[in-house]
Structure formats: C-alpha cells, structure tokens
C-alpha cells in the first residue's frame, strides 16, 4: 500500500515545485529594496510584487513600519514606463491601503495618471485614488470623476461609477452631486456601464420615491442591455410596486406585465429574479402567481445544481404563504429528496412538509426517515422545525409525527439539534392535549441517557409542571428519582425540585415522595441537600397526608416575576455594599427594559418550547402583564386579557420610530407606545403622547406615564390608559401626537446641552377594533369541541360579501376581522375552488370560548356569499360575533 503513495509523492516533488516554496516575509521585504534601484528591473520588480501579493492573500499581515516602507518603495515604481509593472503597482497600492498621511506621496502621481491620455491609466488611477482617498482630496478630484462617469471608454466610466458606489458610504453629500452625470451614464450603450450607473443612481435616489418610480417607468419601457442590470431593475420595480400600494381600481397591478415578460427572458438570472419578485408581491393572486410557479417548476429538474437550488429555495418561501400554489410541483420536489446536494434536498423536504396534505404525511415521514441519517445537524434542525409546524397543522397526525421525533431523539446529535427536538415535543404537548402523555414519556426516556445538563434540567422542570396533571403521575417518579442517583449535581438539584412538585400536587404520593426527599438529605452537594431540606419543611415532611397549602404551591409553581437581569444587578450591588439587613427581594425593580426592542427585531417569532412560560395562552402577554402590573397607575386594572401585536405609527427610516401595543383589560385599555430615537445628536426628555379620542366615544382617558428620557438608539416606552364600559368590546379611532423636549447632544463627548426645546411629532392614527377583544386559542379537534359546546347558544346567518378579488382573499378578510385562530389548516383555500369551509376558534373578552364555522361560495362574477355559524358559552357573545361580521 505504501509503495504507490510514496511514488506519487516523489512525482509531486518534481512536477509541483512551488515558486513560493519556503517563502518568508522577511526575505521578501528585503527583496523589495529592488524598487529603490536607480535602474529599475521591471521583471524583477513584478516578481517581488507577486510575492508580496501572495503573502497578503495568505492572510499574512505587515506591521505599520513594514507596510510604510513597502509603500514608499512601491511609489518609486511610477518612474518606470513598463505597462505590466504599472498595473501591478496599482494593485499593490490598493492592497497596502496606506494611511492618510502617506497617501499624499502618491496623490500627485495618481492625479497625473488620472489625466493621462492613456485611458487605462485613467481608469486604474481612479480606482486607486478612490480606494485611498478621504473627503478633502475627494473634493479636489471631484471634477475629474464627474468627467470620467461620462467618459467614452466604458472601463473609465465603470471605474468612476463603482468608485461612486463605494464613496457613497463615506461621502454621500459629494457623490449625490453627480446624479446628472450618472443619469446620463444610465443611458450608455455599454452594458456594464449601464449596470453600474443604475446601481449608483438608485442608491443616490433611494429615499426619493418619485424619482425611483420615474427611473423604473422609463427603463422598463426602454432597453436594458445586460442581464445584471435587468435584475437590478426588477428589484427596483418590486420596490415601486410595494410602495405604490395594492391594486388600482381596475384590479391590475402596475408593472406586473413587465415582471411577467421577464419570465420569458433568455438569461436564467433574470427569469429567477422576476419569478421571485412576483412571488413576493403583497397579496399576490393565484392568477399572478401561476406563471412564476410554472417556470420555477421547470427549473426543479434542471441539470445545474444552482438552478435547482434557486428554484426550490424560492418555492420554499412561496410555500409559507401560499402552500396550495406549490402543490403542483410536489412530484418534482419529491425526486429532489434524493438530490446529492443536501441543501437542495433539505429545502425540498421542508417545502413538501409545508404543502403536504393530511393523507400524504405518513408517506413523507417514511421518505424523511431514510434521509435524516446522512445530513448534518443544521439541516436536521430545519426538518425538525418543519415537522413541528406540520403537526400543529394536522393535530390528528400527532402519533406518527411524535414517533418520528422520539426516534430521532434517540439517535446521535449535537446540542442544538437535540434542543430543537425537545422544544418541538414540548410545543406539541402544550398545543395537542392528546399528545401529552406519550410526549412526556418520550422526554422521560430521553433524560435516562441525556448528555446535556441544560436539557435534562429543563425537561425536569417541565415534567414537574405537567406530570402531576396526567392520569397516572406515579409512573414518572422512577425516571425522576433515577436522576438523583445517577446524574451530576445540577441535574440532581432539578430532580429534587421536580419530586417536590409531585408531592405538592398529589396528596396520595406524598408519603413516598417524602421518603425519596429524605434520602436526598445525604447528598454530597450543598444545593441538593438545601433544596431537599427546604421542600421537606415547606411540604410538612412529618409524614402526615394533608392538602398542600396554597402559598406553598405558589412558591413551588409560581414563576419568578422579576426580570433576572434586574435580580442579578441588585444582588451584585448587595454584595458590593455589605449590610446587616437581609436581602429584600421586593427591592428589585420589576421594569423590563429591553423587551420592546427584542420584540421588534423578531417579528412573528414563535414561542420557543422550554424557554417560555407555559401558563397563559399568550406567552408574550405574561411579560406584558408583569410590566404593566409593575406600574402603580395600572396595577389596579386587574388581569390582562390580551395584548395586540405592535402597530407601526411612523414610516420606516424616520427620525423617531414609534409603534403601539394595545393592552386590553376588562374595564380599561392601555396603549404602550414603544419609541426609539434614531438621531445621534439628540436627547429627548419628558416624552409622552397626546391622544385625541374624539372618534372613540366610549373611551375616556384615566392616566398616563411619560418617559423621562429617550437617548439615541435606546428604546423606551410611554403609556396612556383609557377607561371603557366593563366587558364590552368598545371600538374607536385614536389620533396621536408625540410631545417631548429635545436637547442637542455633542457627538464627541456624548453630553447633552442644558436647555431643551419643546417639540412635537405627528404620529399615524390607529383603531381599537373588535378583533382586539378576541384571543386566538386553537383546539386540536374542532369537531369534538363543536359537539361538546352544544347548540344551545348557536347563531346561524347568511351574508353577501359582494364582489371580491378571490375566495382566499375573502376568507382571510373574515379571519382577520374576527381575530380568531384558524383550525386544522382550513385557512388555506385551494386554488380555483368555488367553495370553502373554514373553522375558527378563540376566547372572547370575559373569557368566553367561541367556535365559528364559515362556509364560503363564489360565483362566476366573483360575488361571494358566506354562511356563519357561531357556538359559544354565552348567547350574547354569539350575537356579538354576528354584529362584528355584519358591521365589517
């Protein structure tokens, strides 16, 4: 075996001798002295530059002194007339990126080249100058750059334009002055000049909607010379479509024909860009979507992996919003499951999981099982997340999906992957009651052999909350106590807490739990012993079987209603300033500071398994409830019923960004205005919102909480509270003005001036609507829920919805009007269907469960009729739902 290998190695020595073998930085820097020779040897100099480039391209760095020395030597090479060497010199200067005080050495040489009669000197000198220049030098050479943009030689023009794109980041006010020249370059006959000019012009004018719209209008009618420019134009076109709002009166979307035309372009890049633009149109109709999906489907069976990847990636996105539109591609997609490229295969699988129907679930799972064994963890996580959503969509299929999850949980895998699986099982347990017992057992089996302390402790915590509520809690005790015997101290401590929870909830288990807890008193870890002692005392460990005190349960199960960061800070302060007084937990501030920012960054983020509290229907609401109850003015409002998602009250990229969250209580509403200040030179003080409720008659303002300061880039909140009739779903419109005192801040010191100026900022209006009084709460089996609710308070009526765009649009409109949770995937309307049934579930203000059955039909003239059947626990609520629909 060794023989041929050696031979090959010998051959390599002969053939593969590297010109850079044994290259050393010090030696090359020595060699660079040839640049200083009075008689320059161009060939030798080029060789040394190549070596320097090789070093730099290997990630080697030069010290400041080395770089300066090389730079000064390289500048001497401008004396040589050798063209090849000159080209190398340009590159070398760019690579060395000299500092400001050195640049001056080469500027005169470069300025000379910039005005040279040799075009190519001009182009390269521009690129080098723009790379190393600063603002002051730029004003000196601006005139030449403007000329260069409209130069006849396309290379010179492109060099100036691409420089412009880079310089726009550092010197926007200068580059913006070139727009006339750039505009001229957009009309250039040279394809690349047009491409670069288009990119620069758009960047210069990106905040001027009208100008962008004009640019798009003229270019979509004219000629675009390269596929690259065409792609840019498509992107800008979709931006214009997005900003020009929804369909015009005729129902046609502006520029749609242009996008559709691009689907027949000869360059694949353009076809894809157009197809993506169409699929991302807001409120895209099936008719608009079809041609795009058709071309993407063709690419699924392309021989080129890049095209297959691009197609399946786009379809994967479409499947999130329009799963039915993608179902036609399912057969092609299934053949991609075995694609050699794992990125493609994973995308295909996750798309199929989104578009599959209930009957295809089992077949799909079989295919995926084979596939899972040979992909990396990061892909597996994507698949697990897709399976979780599929299971929530088809709760009746939980058995096979849960089995799949438990099987992969037993296989090898890293922490992130295992965490994704555990999170998924937890979410399924929470949302599908039938899946609870089997899910908990899977988790119990997993912790028997789990190498991750974090996961073990989280599962034990979850088990303590959910286990006691099952039909036979005693069967979990074995798994928990095994942890006390076998695991490390952290897990043992968790297991002790879990045991205590079982003891607190189930009186019959108490004596046996006490025996186990007493054994823990001999543990060799302090924390474990402390916990065991604490629980034995709080639960009354004298062995008597008595009902657990309410306070004890609250102590065991109640969540810590103090933000952990605040707790940490307070404890640190306590340790730093020792005192005789014991630490007082009530002294810890309860205000949550960074919450709104995190929320804004992750819109629509799903609750993540173990990390979220599992009590209320809306996990975010729990945080809000704590936040609001920590404010004395609102503490008496009682239990928070619902918090809306954030409603933006300002446009993107304005000076101040404000959104509002509507918190609904039984007799009050509180508006939480999340404000952020995007101007570094300003500090806002005493920030509050003046709310005009003249179009909301049933609301009267009862209090507000201004925000003391709003520094740059640190969001804060101000609140306004209104009273309304108790339990009544009052609606109305509110107009808002932001008031504040503004102080100038010195950016260098960060200090604000003493005197502020009063100012105000107009915000958009928003409404409180009927849907704000409805909490989305799903049911796993709608038919069972419907039957058990019974027909006592059933109300049925029929409505004509008039001519509508499509059936899907009507269904979505009614769902958002009612603000209820669609069940069993019925919110998705198959394309071309003439009728559709939709099932909704929710909890109405006053904690009244409501179920709704909607039946839609559409005729040839697009007239939509709807039958609405409501069942609830209260006849007034059933009537109220009809009032909402009739009024909407």
């Amino acid at each position: 075996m060794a023989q041929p290998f050696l031979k090959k190695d010998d051959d390599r020595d002969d053939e593969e001798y590297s010109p850079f073998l044994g290259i050393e930085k010090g030696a090359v820097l020595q060699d660079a002295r040839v640049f200083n020779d009075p008689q320059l040897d161009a060939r030798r100099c080029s060789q040394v530059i190549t070596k320097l480039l090789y070093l730099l391209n290997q990630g080697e760095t030069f010290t400041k002194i080395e770089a300066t020395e090389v730079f000064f030597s390289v500048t001497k090479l401008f004396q040589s007339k050798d063209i090849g060497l000159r080209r190398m010199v340009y590159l070398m200067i760019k690579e060395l990126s000299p500092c400001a005080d050195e640049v001056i050495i080469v500027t005169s040489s470069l300025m000379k080249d910039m005005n040279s009669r040799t075009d190519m000197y001009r182009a390269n000198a521009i690129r080098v100058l723009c790379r190393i220049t600063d603002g002051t030098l730029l004003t000196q050479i601006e005139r030449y750059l403007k000329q260069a943009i409209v130069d006849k030689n396309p290379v010179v023009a492109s060099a100036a334009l691409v420089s412009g794109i880079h310089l726009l980041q550092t010197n926007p006010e200068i580059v913006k002055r070139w727009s006339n020249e750039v505009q001229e370059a957009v009309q250039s006959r040279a394809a690349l000049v047009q491409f670069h000019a288009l990119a620069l012009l758009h960047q210069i004018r990106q905040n001027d909607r009208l100008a962008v719209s004009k640019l798009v209008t003229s270019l979509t009618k004219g000629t675009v010379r390269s596929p690259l420019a065409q792609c840019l134009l498509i992107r800008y076109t979709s931006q214009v479509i997005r900003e020009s709002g929804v369909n015009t009166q005729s129902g046609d979307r502006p520029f749609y024909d242009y996008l559709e035309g691009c689907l027949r372009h000869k360059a694949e890049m353009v076809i894809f860009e157009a197809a993506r633009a169409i699929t991302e149109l807001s409120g895209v109709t099936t008719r608009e979507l079809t041609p795009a999906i058709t071309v993407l489907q063709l690419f699924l069976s392309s021989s080129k992996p890049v095209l297959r990847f691009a197609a399946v990636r786009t379809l994967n996105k479409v499947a999130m919003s329009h799963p039915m539109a993608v179902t036609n591609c399912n057969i092609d997609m299934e053949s991609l499951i075995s694609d050699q490229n794992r990125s493609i295969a994973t995308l295909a699988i996750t798309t199929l999981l989104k578009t599959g129907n209930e009957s295809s679930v089992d077949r799909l799972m079989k295919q995926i099982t084979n596939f899972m064994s040979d992909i990396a963890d990061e892909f597996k996580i994507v698949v697990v997340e897709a399976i979780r959503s599929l299971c929530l969509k088809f709760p009746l299929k939980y058995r096979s999906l849960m089995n799949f999850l438990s099987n992969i949980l037993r296989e090898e895998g890293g922490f992130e992957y295992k965490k994704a699986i555990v999170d998924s099982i937890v979410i399924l347990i929470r949302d599908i009651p039938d899946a609870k017992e089997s899910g908990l057992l899977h988790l119990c089996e997993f912790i028997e052999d789990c190498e991750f302390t974090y996961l073990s402790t989280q599962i034990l915590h979850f088990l303590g909350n959910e286990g006691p509520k099952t039909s036979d809690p005693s069967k979990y005790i074995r798994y928990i106590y095994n942890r006390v015997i076998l695991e490390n101290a952290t897990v043992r401590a968790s297991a002790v807490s879990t045991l205590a929870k079982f003891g607190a909830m189930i009186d019959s288990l108490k004596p046996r739990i006490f025996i186990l807890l007493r054994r823990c008193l001999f543990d060799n870890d302090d924390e474990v012993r402390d916990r065991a002692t604490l629980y034995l005392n709080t639960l009354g460990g004298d062995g008597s079987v008595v009902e657990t005190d309410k306070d004890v349960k609250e102590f065991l199960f109640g969540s810590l209603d103090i933000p952990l960061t605040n707790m940490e800070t307070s404890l640190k302060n306590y340790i730093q300033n020792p005192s005789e007084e014991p630490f007082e937990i009530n002294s810890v501030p309860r205000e949550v500071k960074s919450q709104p920012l995190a929320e804004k960054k992750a819109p629509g983020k799903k609750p993540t398994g173990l990390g979220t509290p599992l009590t209320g229907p809306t996990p975010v609401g729990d945080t809000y409830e704590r936040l609001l109850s920590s404010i004395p003015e609102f503490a008496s409002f009682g239990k928070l019923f619902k918090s809306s998602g954030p409603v933006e009250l300002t446009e993107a990229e304005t000076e101040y960004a404000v959104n509002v969250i509507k918190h609904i209580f039984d007799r009050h509403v509180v508006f939480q205005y999340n404000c952020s200040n995007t101007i570094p030179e300003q500090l806002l003080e005493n920030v509050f919102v003046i709310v005009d409720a003249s179009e909301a008659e049933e609301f009267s303002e009862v209090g507000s909480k201004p925000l003391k300061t709003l520094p740059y880039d640190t969001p804060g909140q101000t609140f306004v509270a209104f009273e309304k009739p108790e339990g009544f779903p009052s609606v109305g419109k509110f107009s808002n003005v932001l008031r504040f005192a503004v102080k100038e801040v010195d950016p260098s010191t960060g200090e604000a001036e003493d005197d502020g100026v009063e100012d105000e900022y107009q915000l958009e209006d928003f409404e409180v609507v009927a849907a704000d009084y409805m909490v989305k709460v799903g049911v796993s089996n709608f038919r069972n829920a419907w039957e058990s609710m019974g027909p006592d308070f059933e109300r049925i009526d029929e409505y004509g919805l008039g001519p509508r765009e499509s059936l899907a649009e009507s269904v979505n409109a009614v769902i958002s009007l009612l603000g209820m949770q669609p069940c069993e995937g019925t919110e998705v309307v198959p394309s071309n269907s003439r009728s559709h049934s939709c099932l909704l579930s929710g909890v109405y203000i006053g904690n009244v469960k409501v179920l709704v059955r909607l039946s839609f039909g559409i005729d040839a003239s697009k007239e939509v009729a709807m039958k609405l059947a409501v069942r609830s626990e209260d006849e007034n609520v059933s009537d109220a739902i009809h009032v909402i629909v009739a009024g909407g």
Partner: protein
Amino acid sequence: MLLAVLIANSEGNILVERFNGVPAEERLHWRSFLVKLGADNLKGVKNEELLVASHKSVFIVYTVLGDVSIFVVGKDEYDELALAEAIFVITSALKDVCGKPPTERLFLDKYGKICLCLDEIVWKGLLENTDKERIKRLVRLKPPTEF
C-alpha cells in the same frame, strides 16, 4: 455584497483569499468552513460543475478547476445566481491565463496575472467586469476592443 473569493489547492491549502466586509476575526472561521465544505463535497466533481450551499443568510457557490477549488461567498443581491455568474467569470479568466484547467504549479506560476484578473473582476465586493476577453486586455492595460 460579494463577501469572499477563496481559491485552495486539492489539500485545502489556501492559494488566494480575498474578503470584503468580513471582520478579521470571522475570516478564519470562513476559511475552515469553506475548506471543509470542499473536502466533503468536491471529490469526483467535474471541472466547472457548480455546487451550491447556504449557511444562514449567506450563499456559497463553489467548483473545481484542474487542481484548484474555487469558492465564492455572497449575501443579499449576491445570491446563488449572481455568484454563479461571478464564479463563471473567474473560471474563464483562470483558464484564459493558464491556457487550460491549471495544475497547482501552473496556477502559482501565473499567480501575479491571476491576482490582476481577480482585481478586475471583483472590486471591494462588487462585480466589476464580466467578459474574459476584456479582462485579458485590461490586465495588460489595453482598452477594451468594443471601444
């Protein structure tokens, strides 16, 4: 933004790496990630057959040419299709400079020329020139023929 162009030999040693807008501390991570990606997938791949991967919101298109593997990394507007275009320009220019799919030795012999070509193709993360004939002339400071 075209975040990186990386060329390695068949053993995964770096021959050229050019990053744009990638913080210095992340470069090492990218280098080892790409080299591993190549080692896992490029075995037996034909010259210039493009492979594609995505890592978070970043795209990677890579291929083999003779003894060297070429990787381009991009995000936003430089998606898999734009990167395919960029890597096509790079492979054509390399073949042009070397006269054939290069051995490692040939690649290193032509190293200076190759650096110049890459400089013409990608400039600070933007695609600048796409035509190999033009690039061939530009590295010799000759104006393009169509002019």
